[in-house]
């Protein structure tokens, strides 16, 4: 009996951790109970991107989007939707301030503004079945590349399409492929860099989990273009599900003869091996990655020679990010004109961002280049929860910078595509490689952390710097010593012992580390500090001179006080805070206003948490 309905249950890491697989099992049991198991097929797919509302399921062909499902909802869902054909309103997604839930997935704003190329198959294919991928034109691009195009034509196609590296630097992929093709030395290698060490970035993981075959097909086309014999997928060991799915995909590709000798009788010999990263952020840098694949200590080395001339085992090597490889098949299939229409003048195509932080709809979005921060945060992200004021957005992970929202009165000079000069404030800045770099941040892997008024920028800078300092490989002096000294200064400032020439020292050391470090990690580590210093200097000064943290994040600088009026009128002097205070620093009687002895107070903030009436004021 042919199926009439496909339930696409999301099995990305986010949803799986919210027990979406239990929902699937409950669904299966319920369908069998209702005798519908031959009419309704359950398909587990990769991550759909809307992790905030997982576990989620899309019922096709109707396109109904169900979210935050639990096993308890399953009987009602089956009864109503599958038996009676009436979608269940209760389980649909209702955007904030929206009157009614939106049934169709395509109408939900989170998905509507997206443009899927690298994630074209997410939610529509079972990542562990090659047949699903083939059904959605999988490996057709490879057939076209092998039969109708010469390697040079392939490279020409990629170059004209304007595809640039999605790892963060944005190096034109076509140029890189040509350099490796023309370099002397056999055999040649291509590497898929899935190290993704940035905290808060998970786009590579999601591509591996939802559509591993698109990466394999991209690498096959790259191998054909470059003349590479071996491929390596370098994937973080911290991504067990993604690792499992890429290995299954590679195994299936080998069984179908799409990897190995004489692929599709085209004479192309190519195979892919998987190497697991050992958890060092520095191994995201290409030369350190190569060292790690060769089994050596993951230290970067001086360049030139660039990996294109002498990379893995000293042979010409082309290293591209997961997302870059995933973009290749659509370009080859639909031609470069189609691709170059998307995006801006200098940055073509789409970019996958991981929208995290103080935003309602956290998750993974693939948007065309040129989209503005406002669209990304408000239209797609659903704005800032808890009616807090938007303060800044951090892009590019620990190597990126912070872009303030508050600089409304100082718009930046923006040259529109038609050459007209416009004054735009940051939020309306179209996002692409150059625009982000100009404001001191960088595209990076695509991590986008939204921050609201409750975020202390000094603390954010300290957090990111602590990460890069800890991940520094220690080979070159400026990065090893510089990041440590800057971290010590920032820690001092957050504890209220900073001085004004600490700021000058931060800038000086930051400049030197940025200019003279051996590899990308060192060159970008100071960015978070330098951009927060540039845009939020007043907060630093507040920490130093006023010994106050405007966002009350740096605990040592806070003072805690109980508002006597609220405490008595609303709280009737309940004394919860008095009992809970670990330092016994709160005094007062029933129905009397309570008082905090600031000498004993260790500023732990427990009283704020336990007081139901928000009587505790933090200054």
């Amino acid at each position, binding site marked *: *009996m042919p199926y009439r309905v*496909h339930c*696409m249950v999301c099995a990305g890491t986010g949803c799986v951790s919210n027990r979406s697989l239990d929902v699937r099992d409950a669904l299966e049991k319920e369908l069998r109970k209702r005798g519908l198991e031959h009419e309704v097929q359950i398909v587990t797919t990769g991550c759909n991107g809307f992790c905030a509302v997982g576990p989620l399921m899309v019922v096709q*062909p109707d*396109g109904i989007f169900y979210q935050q499902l639990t096993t308890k909802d399953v009987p009602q869902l089956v009864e109503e939707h599958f038996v009676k*054909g009436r979608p269940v309103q209760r389980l649909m997604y209702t955007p904030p301030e929206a009157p009614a839930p939106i049934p169709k997935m395509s109408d939900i704003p989170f998905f509507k503004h997206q443009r899927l190329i690298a994630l074209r198959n997410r939610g529509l294919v079972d990542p562990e079945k090659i047949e*699903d991928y*083939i*059904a959605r034109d999988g490996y057709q691009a490879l*057939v076209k590349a092998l039969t109708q195009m010469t390697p040079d034509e392939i490279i020409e196609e990629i170059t004209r399409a304007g595809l640039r590296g999605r790892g963060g630097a944005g190096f034109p992929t076509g140029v890189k492929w040509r350099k490796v093709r023309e370099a002397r030395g056999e055999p040649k290698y291509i590497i898929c860099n899935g190290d993704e060490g940035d905290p808060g970035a998970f786009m590579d993981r999601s591509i591996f989990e939802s559509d591993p075959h698109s990466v394999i097909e991209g690498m096959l086309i790259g191998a054909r273009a470059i003349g590479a014999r071996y491929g390596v997928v370098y994937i973080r060991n911290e991504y067990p599900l993604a690792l499992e799915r890429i290995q299954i995909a590679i195994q299936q590709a080998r069984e179908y003869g799409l990897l190995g000798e004489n692929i599709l009788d085209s004479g192309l010999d190519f195979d892919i091996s998987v190497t697991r990263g050992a958890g060092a952020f520095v191994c995201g840098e290409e030369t350190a990655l190569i060292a790690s694949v060769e089994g050596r200590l993951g230290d970067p080395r001086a360049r030139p020679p660039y990996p294109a001339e002498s990379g893995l085992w000293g042979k010409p090597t082309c290293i591209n990010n997961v997302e870059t490889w995933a973009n290749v098949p659509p370009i080859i299939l639909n031609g470069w004109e189609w691709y170059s229409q998307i995006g801006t003048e200098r940055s073509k195509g789409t970019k996958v961002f991981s929208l995290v932080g103080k935003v309602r709809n956290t998750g993974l979005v693939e948007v065309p280049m040129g989209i503005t921060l406002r669209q990304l945060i408000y239209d797609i992200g659903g704005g800032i929860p808890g009616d807090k004021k938007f303060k800044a957005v951090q892009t590019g992970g620990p190597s990126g910078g912070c872009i303030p929202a508050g600089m409304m009165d100082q718009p930046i000079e923006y040259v529109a595509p038609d050459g007209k000069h416009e004054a735009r404030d940051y939020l309306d800045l179209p996002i692409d490689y150059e625009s982000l770099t100009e404001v001191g941040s960088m595209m990076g892997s695509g991590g986008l952390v939204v921050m609201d008024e409750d975020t202390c920028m000094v603390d954010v800078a300290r957090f990111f710097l602590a990460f890069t300092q800890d991940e520094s490989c220690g080979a070159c002096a400026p990065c090893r010593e510089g990041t440590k000294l800057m971290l010590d200064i920032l820690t001092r400032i957050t504890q209220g012992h900073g001085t004004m020439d600490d700021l000058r020292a931060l800038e000086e050391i930051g400049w030197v580390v940025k200019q003279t470090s051996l590899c990308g990690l060192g060159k970008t580590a100071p960015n978070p500090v330098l951009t927060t210093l540039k845009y939020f200097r007043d907060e630093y000064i507040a920490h130093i001179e006023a010994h106050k943290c405007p966002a009350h994040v740096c605990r040592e600088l806070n003072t805690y006080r109980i508002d006597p009026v609220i405490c008595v009128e609303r709280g009737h002097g309940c004394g919860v805070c008095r009992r809970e205070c670990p330092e016994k620093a709160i005094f007062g009687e029933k129905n009397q206003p309570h008082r905090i002895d600031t000498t004993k107070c260790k500023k732990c903030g427990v009283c704020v948490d336990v007081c139901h009436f928000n009587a505790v004021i933090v200054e």
Partner: protein
Amino acid sequence: MPKLKIEDLARMREEARRATMLREGAGRVKIIVHLGTCGIAAGGRNIMAAVLREIEERNLHDVLVTTSGCAGLCSREPMMTVEVLGQAPVKYVDLTEGKVKEIFAEHVMGGKIAERYALAVGSERAM
């Protein structure tokens, strides 16, 4: 698995088309079987099974089958609506498995509405 040739890829793509078409909600004809409480009571499940059997026998992959709630005409159940892309949806009433076979042949395949069983043409938009 034997080593794939290019033709194998194309063949597999065709075979799997059915599933993907369905997933993308794309199809030439859409059949809605009304399974409201009354519909089910009147034997809507058998009609659904019949429709699915027809699709299977003809190995069609551009026909979408969905269910919907009660259309309001409980007396004329079981009912189904057949909507060919671009044409007005046609509602058929008092169905039996035999009738379903005829409707399928004339309307779904032939494109000509089976007047004798049709109740009304162009009621609410189904697509």
